[in-house]
């Protein structure tokens, strides 16, 4: 698998979350995602970016374009230096919320992409890495 063109965006305001959605949609279009696939990955990015802002106190998103023989994909890495998550399993479960949301953001985002990894711990900040492939490129 080869990687190319890494793009880094700040996430420190609602306006920048809109910028994240825009950039992820453009990356998904460039990777040849269908409309449904674009919508899924952009929605996942919107949820994760909002987590970075609301729970992590702001951070950054790195977008990496991936390429393998079956096709192109995109990897999104959301990183913040916030308080971190003590109990990842609970945070991922549906309906669990620390704020006023629906509690579906993290778990929902995981269902919208093909690969999902979270690296976090109390005081360590949180890094969520997700990878999305269009249908034709999913089989390894």
């Amino acid at each position, binding site marked *: 698998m080869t990687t190319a063109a890494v793009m880094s965006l700040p996430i420190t305001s*609602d306006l920048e979350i*809109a910028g994240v*959605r825009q950039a992820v949609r453009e990356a998904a279009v460039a990777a040849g995602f269908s*409309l*449904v696939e*674009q*919508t*899924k990955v*952009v*929605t996942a990015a*919107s*949820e994760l970016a*909002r987590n970075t802002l609301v729970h992590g106190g702001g951070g950054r998103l790195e977008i990496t374009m991936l390429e393998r023989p079956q096709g192109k994909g995109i990897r999104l890495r959301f990183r913040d230096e916030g308080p971190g998550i003590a109990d990842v399993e609970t945070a991922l479960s*549906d309906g669990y919320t620390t704020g006023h*949301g*629906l509690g*579906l*953001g993290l*778990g*929902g*985002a995981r*269902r*919208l992409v093909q690969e999902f990894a979270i690296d976090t711990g109390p005081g360590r900040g949180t890094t969520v890495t997700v990878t999305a492939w269009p249908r034709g490129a999913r089989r390894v």
Partner: protein
Amino acid sequence: MTVAESSGAAAVAEFLRARREQLAQQWADLALFRAVYTSGRDIAVNAAHGLVDALTEVARDGRMDDVTVPALDQVRALLAQVIAARSQAGAGPLQVAGEVAELKRPVIAMVGRELADVNRGAALIAATDLMGTVRLVGMEISLSDEGAIVARQRQQLSEIATPVLKLWDRVVAVPLIGTLDSARTQVVMETLLEAIVDERATVAILDITGVPLVDTVVAQHLMKTALAVRLMGARCVVSGIRPQIAQTIVQLGIDLGDITTRATLADALEWALAQVGTSVGRA
């Protein structure tokens, strides 16, 4: 602060005090003042006096390149007036920054000409620092001004972009277009609830055909709006749910509960007409 720096600052303070009138006369002819105080040159000179005096205070304080000194507050207030007038007249932030930068030239020219003694080098550096700070303050003002304009336009846009349409007797609809954030939702909810009262509506249609993405926050906004509509005694139907949005909502795990939904606005209208007891045959 080194000895040379403080002697430079002191020399500039003394220079500004002594050359107050000449400098104000020169500044009054520059675009920044001329374009704002169009009613008379005297008024422009007067405003320039104010700025010279404020800068004299900064030079007396001695910290020429520190944008946080309290002595700069007066400079900031004076520049804010002038810059606000310039941007209202349509000058962009770059043009205004250029006009603020022009203030420097007469100061440096006069300091270079008049302070021939040993202090000249230090005084020139101090004067350059001071005018650089003025430029920075000007930049800061025009950028925050720009921010205020963007915020205002956003506000206007959110109001313009949410018309409530009366589709039928007792049926109102809001076609939502673009991202549904908290501020938009608030406006939509207010205008919709008012329309329900004004039109004595019993059905409200929220059409999201123009909403590119429904994430958990947007869904929550829709549910709150639907709940508010129900509290007003009307029924709410969400229409314009496109296939990709439907699939995403399902995978996110959002349960829209008992909100009635329809694929298209036409379907929603048909449902609404049935609710108000009217039926229209399809061609």
